[in-house]
C-alpha cells in the first residue's frame, strides 16, 4: 500500500495494465515525452517505449477515430482528451462509431477503448476548462461512463475500464487530482497523502464498473453524488448536522440502482447533486428513476442541486459552483418538506 494522489493512481493503473498486456496503448495530446498536462502519463513512454505511449496531433476526432481503429484490430487503447471540454470534435466518432460498433456488426467488431478526460471546474478555467459533460455520454447507448472520486477508486476503475470489452468514458474530476476538495475554496485542500482514500494497493485490483459506494451512512435523507460533489455533499451534511446518507455513484452507466433504491427506501428523501448544468443533466435521470422505483417510500419531492444553466463563468466561478451552502440549503428544504 502506498499513499498516492489521484494523478499517481491513474498513472499506476495504466502502468499495471501496460505491464500486463502488450495490447494496451496510450496516446493523446502531450501525453508522450511530457507525460500529459496533468502528468497522468508521466514516465510511461520512457518505460514502455514510443509505440506504446505517444503524442498525438491536436485533433480529438482523429485521436478517438484512430483509437477505434486500434480497438477493432484488437488493441486496448487508453486515450487522453486533454480537457473534457475538448472532446466535442470527437463526439461523432464516439457516438456514431465507438458506441455502436458491437451492435451494428452484430458482435463482429468491438471497441474495447477507454477515453480519459479531466472534467469539472474549480480551477478558474472559464468556460473551456471546466465543463462536466457526463450527460452527453450517458445518453448514448453502447457507452459506459464512470467517474471516480478518489485515488483508490480511480486506479481500480481505470483497470476495470481498460479490461472492459466495451468503450468506457473515464471522467477525472480535476479538482480532486490532489486532494478531496469539498467546495471550500477559501481553505487549503487536505492532500491525498493525509486521506485514507489516498491509500492505494500495489499491482492489479479492480473496482467493478456499475457498483456504487455508500461513503457516509445516514437515515434521514439520501444524497446521490459523484466526482467532486461527493465531498461537497459530505461537507454539507456535516455542516448542517444532518443525518444524510451519501452515495458515491462511481459508475453512471451502468448504474447501481439497487444501492440507490435501498437507501431511499430507508431514508424516504433524496437530493441529487452534480456540477453539470441542471437541465437534461444526469440528475434528471436519477430523479426519474428514484420516483419510479421508490415512489411509495418518498416523503418529499426529489431535489436537484446542479450548476446553473449558463456557460461556466470565469470570475463568478464560486457563485456558479454548487458548493456546500447550496447543497446544505437543499438538504434542509428536503427535510422540511411535508
Amino acid at each position: 500500500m502506498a499513499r498516492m494522489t489521484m494523478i499517481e493512481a491513474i498513472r499506476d493503473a495504466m502502468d499495471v495494465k501496460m505491464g500486463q498486456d502488450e495490447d494496451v496503448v496510450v496516446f493523446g495530446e502531450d501525453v508522450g515525452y511530457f507525460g500529459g498536462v496533468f502528468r497522468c502519463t508521466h514516465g510511461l513512454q520512457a518505460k514502455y517505449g514510443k509505440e506504446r505511449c505517444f503524442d498525438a496531433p491536436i485533433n480529438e476526432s482523429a485521436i478517438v477515430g484512430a483509437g477505434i481503429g486500434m480497438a477493432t484490430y484488437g488493441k486496448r487503447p487508453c486515450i487522453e482528451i486533454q480537457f473534457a471540454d475538448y472532446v466535442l470534435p470527437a463526439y461523432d466518432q464516439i457516438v456514431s462509431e465507438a458506441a455502436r460498433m458491437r451492435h451494428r456488426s452484430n458482435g463482429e467488431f468491438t471497441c474495447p477503448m477507454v477515453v480519459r478526460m479531466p472534467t469539472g471546474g474549480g480551477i478558474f478555467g472559464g468556460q473551456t476548462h471546466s465543463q462536466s459533460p457526463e450527460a452527453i455520454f450517458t445518453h448514448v447507448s453502447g457507452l459506459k461512463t464512470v467517474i471516480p472520486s478518489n485515488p483508490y477508486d480511480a486506479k481500480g476503475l481505470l483497470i476495470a475500464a481498460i479490461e472492459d470489452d466495451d468503450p468506457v468514458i473515464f471522467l477525472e474530476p480535476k479538482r480532486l487530482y490532489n486532494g478531496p476538495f469539498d467546495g471550500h475554496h477559501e481553505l487549503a485542500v487536505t492532500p491525498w497523502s493525509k486521506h485514507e482514500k489516498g491509500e492505494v494497493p500495489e499491482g492489479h485490483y479492480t473496482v467493478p464498473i456499475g457498483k456504487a459506494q455508500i461513503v457516509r451512512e445516514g437515515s434521514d435523507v439520501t444524497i446521490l453524488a459523484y466526482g467532486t460533489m461527493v465531498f461537497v455533499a459530505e461537507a454539507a451534511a456535516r455542516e448542517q448536522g444532518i443525518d444524510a446518507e451519501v452515495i458515491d455513484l462511481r459508475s453512471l452507466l451502468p448504474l447501481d440502482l439497487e444501492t440507490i433504491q435501498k437507501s431511499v427506501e430507508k431514508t424516504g428523501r433524496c437530493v441529487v447533486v452534480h456540477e453539470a448544468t441542471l437541465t437534461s443533466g444526469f440528475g434528471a435521470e436519477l430523479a426519474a428513476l428514484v420516483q419510479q422505483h421508490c415512489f411509495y417510500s418518498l416523503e418529499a419531492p426529489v431535489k436537484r442541486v446542479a450548476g446553473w444553466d449558463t456557460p461556466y463563468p470565469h470570475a463568478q466561478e464560486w457563485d456558479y459552483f454548487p458548493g456546500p451552502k447550496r447543497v446544505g440549503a437543499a438538504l434542509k428544504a428536503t427535510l422540511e418538506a411535508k
Partner: protein
Amino acid sequence: MADNKESGHKGPLSIHIPEPPGRPGDKPDFSHIKIPKAGETRCPDLDTKAEDMRDMAYSIVRVLDRKGNAVGPWAEYLGDDLTDETLLRGLKDMMVTRAFDQRMQTAQRQGKTSFYVQCTGEEAIATGFQRMMRPGDMNFPTYRQQGLLIAAECPLIDMMNQIYSNEKDPLDGKQLPALYSFKDHGFFTISGNLGTQYVQAVGWAMASAISGDDKISSAWIGDGSTAETDFHSGMLFASVYKPPVVLNIVNNQWAISSSNAIAGSQNTTFAARALGYGFPSIRVDGNDYLAVLAASKWATERARRNLGPTLIEWVTYRVAAHSTSDDPTAYRPQTESDAWPLGDPIERLKLHLIANSDWTEERHTQAKAEIESEIIRIQKEAESHGTLNKGHGPDAEMMFEGVYKEMPEHLVRQRIEFEKQGLEG
C-alpha cells in the same frame, strides 16, 4: 514494378513517431529549417496562379539582412508603405506588446489574475499584419495575437480590465483572461477551443462577398492546431468559394510540449497545405517586421482585389512558456530560444532603424523606459477597478445575462434562487 519478394520489407512493420530536434539536455538544433538569404525569395504578381508559385510554400520571404538593411523584391513591393514613420510605429507596437506581456505575466504570478499567455518573440507578426487591415475588417485570432489589438490601438486599460476580471471588465468576468472580444477593433471573440474559428473567418469573408461589401477577414491558428479538422474545413471552403480571406498559420515550433513535427511538418511545410487546395501560399520570416508588412500587404491586397484566399505560414519561435500554466524546461532544451536562427523581431527592426534613420540606441532605451512607465501607470489605474481576487468584481448575476437575448423562464427562476440564497447566507 520491382519484385516484391526481393525488394519488399522483411522485418515487422512499425509506425513513425516524430521527435523534436532536441529535448532537455540536448544541444538546440535548427538545422532542419532551411533559411534563404534576405532578399533572395521572389515576389510574384498578385494574380499569380497557385501552380506557378509552388516554390513560395517551401522558401522563406525575408527582407532584413544581417546588417539591418531592407533588401530584395519584397522591400520594393512595400514601396510607399516603407516609411520611417511606419517602422517606428511598428517598433513601438512590438515594444508595447512585449512590455504589456511582461507586466501581465508578473500580475498573474502575484495572484491578480488566473491565467496569461505571452507572445514573446512573435510580436512582429500580429502587430505588422494589423497595419494592413482596415476598419471594418475582422481578425479571428488565437490567444497569442494580442499584437493585433495593440496595433489597432485598442486601449490597454480595456485589455487589462478584461485580464483582471474587474468591475470594468468589458466581458463582465465571463471569459478567461486574454480571451478578449473587441469587435470595434476588428477582433473577434476568442474561443478556447482550438481551430474552431478558422472556418468561421472563411464564412465571415464569404458573407462580406455575398453582401457585395469590401471587407476582408483574416484567420489565425498555431502550428499545432492546424491538426484540427476545422483548419482543413476552412482551407476547403476557402478553396471552393475563394472569399476575401487571409489564412495565417503562426508556426512557433511548439504546441505546449509537442513539436510541430507532431502536427505533420516533418516532411513538408505548413504553407504547403494550401497547394493541395490549389490557392497561393507563402512562407515568411515572422521575426522580420518588414517581411511581415510586405507579405501582409500582398495577401490582403489579393483579398481586396477579389483574387481569393492566401495562406501565410509565419516562421517564428515561441520564446515564452506556452502559458502561465506551463514550464517548458521539462520538454525542450533550455537554451533553444537563444539558438533560434531568425533572431528577435524587436532587435532586428531596431538595428534597421539605427542603420537607416535617426533612431539611436539612446532613443531606444528612452522609449523602452517611457513605454514601461506608461504601462505601469495604466496598470495602476486598472487595478483601482479591482483584480480577480480583490475589490469589486463584475456582479455575480452577470453570469445569467447573455445566455440568450431574452432570458427564458427557467433561467429567471434560477437567478431568483441564486439571489435568494445570497440573502440567506
